[in-house]
């Protein structure tokens, strides 16, 4: 059974650092992209970027480039999302999700077929 299990809720102050985790099991962790998606209260879901565990290749959403960092530890099949300096606007529920390739003719898109349970991050001023 494919599972993504995330670390627990975190509370920080603005300017602090933080790393949250997402551990995969039940599939070949190294050969599937992991996406990070956040749910901001009242604003819906936002794709933050993705990482390929096999070689740590990363893609960041342009608005978040430079503010967050993705990494993986292949030995423990764990992906990480970290901030060096949190902002109040980072308050959200963060999800990791396994990327799934959808091919239709010459069109390739990607969905997310398995998700973690989410990590609530609260940042106060």
């Amino acid at each position: 059974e494919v599972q993504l299990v995330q670390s627990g809720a975190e509370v920080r102050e603005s300017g602090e650092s933080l790393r949250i985790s997402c551990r995969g099991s039940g599939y070949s962790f190294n050969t599937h992209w992991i996406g990070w998606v956040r749910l901001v209260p009242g604003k819906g879901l936002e794709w933050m970027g993705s990482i390929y565990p096999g070689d740590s290749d990363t893609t960041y959403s342009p608005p978040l480039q430079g503010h967050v960092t993705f990494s993986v530890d292949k030995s423990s099949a764990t992906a990480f999302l970290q901030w060096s300096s949190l902002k109040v606007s980072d308050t959200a529920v963060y999800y990791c999700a396994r990327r799934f390739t959808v091919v239709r003719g010459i069109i390739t898109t990607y969905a997310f077929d398995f998700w973690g349970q989410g990590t609530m991050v609260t940042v106060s001023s």
Partner: protein
Amino acid sequence: QSVLTQPPSVSGAPGQRITISCTGSNSNIGADYDVHWYQHLPGTAPKLLVYGTTNRPSGVPDRFSGSKSGTSASLAITGLQAEDEADYFCQSYDSSLSGFYVFGTGTKVTVL
């Protein structure tokens, strides 16, 4: 930040058919990129409901169906059941600088 627009809420009585719209633009849905749909119960992991616009993963009832036309997509739920009460999000790919994968604003489905 969402570039795909959904109605905030849709409601229906048990057994009814409802549809949820997802309106995009020529850089995402209108560019012929597929649309995917997720069901989300607060506090739980989102669940992939429809992928590739019209396909259902194994285990998803055929009461859920997706379609697309022009710059919009729709998710239809027939034979509405109490367990369908949840938030629903659409997702596609966007070729503009706003980001690669874009989600809808989300729709809360209420079963009356």
